[in-house]
Structure formats: structure tokens, C-alpha cells
């Protein structure tokens, strides 16, 4: 049994898009490397500019993204 996922390219490395969560003006992207099971990243994209991957601004936004993942895991 397989599941189809979108991919995200960061520095020529491909990541699987595990989940995409909408919050305010952004979509938060939860990514995992298929090659390394310990390699996870959270990035964001603007709703009106979905092809440009952005870093999270700071520690607080990182914690926000973590909390959003927990809230949307049900």
C-alpha cells in the first residue's frame, strides 16, 4: 500500500511533504527526507506566493509551527 506525496527541493535535496497546514497568511510545510529518517524541517510559503519557500522567522514561530502540527494531528 503506497501514498502519494508532493516533494520540496531544498539545496538540491528532495524532501517529502508530510503535511501542509494553513495559518494566517501562510501555509506551514512539514518535511522529511526520504533518505535520512532523522532529517525533518518545517518551512512556510505565503498564500499568494506559493513557489517561494521561506524559513520560519524565529524560535517563537518554530514553536507555533510545532503546536499547529499537534492541533492538526487528530
Amino acid at each position, binding site marked *: 500500500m503506497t*501514498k*502519494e506525496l508532493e516533494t520540496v527541493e531544498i*539545496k538540491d535535496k*528532495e524532501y*517529502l511533504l508530510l503535511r501542509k497546514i494553513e495559518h494566517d497568511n501562510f501555509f506551514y510545510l512539514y518535511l522529511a527526507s526520504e533518505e535520512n529518517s532523522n532529517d525533518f524541517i518545517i518551512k512556510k510559503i505565503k498564500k499568494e506566493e506559493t513557489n517561494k519557500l521561506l*524559513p520560519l522567522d524565529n*524560535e517563537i514561530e518554530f*514553536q507555533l509551527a510545532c503546536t499547529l502540527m499537534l492541533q492538526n494531528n487528530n
Partner: protein
Amino acid sequence: MDILKSNEVNMENSDKTIVKLIEEMRKKSLLKEDGKLKTRITSIKKSTYYRYLSKIVGICALSATLYASGALASHNLEKIQDDISIYHLSEKFYETIINPEISITSNKEGYYYDYLSLADKIEKFTDIDEAVYFLNFYLGDTQTDKVLEYTEYKNFSHFLKLQNYESKKEFQNNTVNKIIAHDTIADKEEELYRIQNEVDENIDKSKGGKR
């Protein structure tokens, strides 16, 4: 503290501690680097997807817990070790108890849980609080209700009432403290595998063959 020793054993499968995983994910997430969302679709095994998902959810949960408790800032190592122990147990719980009871819908667009099987497993635990704690950790209140419908507890709020908890928060704190105070991780892992084996044996007997 036994839990620290057993935790070291659990780390053998990985060179990285969970705290390092959180730190690496945090650093990479804040790093400005070129990246783009591709339109390419790739297929991965369903089991691999849920393993990745459970892992990142666990990392997010622990990160949020550590941040809220101030453990990272205060370098409260014992608190961090306790949280890591809970994280490892929750991951084992997902692998052995929840994951085998997830099925894909017939249109292959969603998934569902076998609530009856989950309820059967939950009732086999020595400490029902611990089982419901981990169940709720992964499934949330709504799905927990659906599992508990098949038990004497009927639903999550009734469970809290029967177990004499005034709030979900009190239940969570008390259960985490119980796990840390009375059990070693190895003991709890053994219980998880025992329950999974019992369930598998019952299925084999009823079907007259392997699952």
C-alpha cells in the same frame, strides 16, 4: 534513576538524541536557504509515511513541552530526560498499538482506525491511565471517545470522571508522573509487545492462520 539507564539503551538505535533532533529541525527550519515546492508527486509506502508522520509529531510535541516547561532554557536535564522517556514510550505505543489498527479507505483517499481492536488492546494494559494517555496523545479527544465507546468507560470525559480526575490536565500530569516514578522504559516496552503478541495470537487462533 533507572529510567535514565533504560533511556540510554533506547538511544542505541540512533546516534542522535531526541533533543538533538529537535535542535537540528529548529536550526534547519530557521535557516534561510533556497528551496521550492515542486509539482512532482512521489509514492512511498503507507507504513513509511505514518512512521515519518508519527516521528515529526513526536518531535513537535516534545519541543512544545520543553519550550512550555522552560526545560531547554534552564538546562533542566532531568526534566529533559523524563520528557525523552515519555516520547520514546509514545513512539513505541504508536508502533505497536495504534499503527497496526490503521486501514486505508476503499477509495484510498483516507484512513480509519479499528476502534474495537484498539479498545481491546487498551483494556489489556496494567494501568489504563497510561494506555488512555498515549492513545489520547496521538488520536486526540474525538477519536479517543470512539475507542472508549467499546469499553466500560463509554467516552473520554466519562473515563476522567470514573478515574477521579477533575480535568484532562490533571489526568495528563498525574499519568506522566506515574510513568516516570514507577516504571522503567524497558518494563513499559515489554508490556506493549506483550499486548501486541496477545492480540496477534488471538487473531491467529480465530482465523486458524497468520494475520
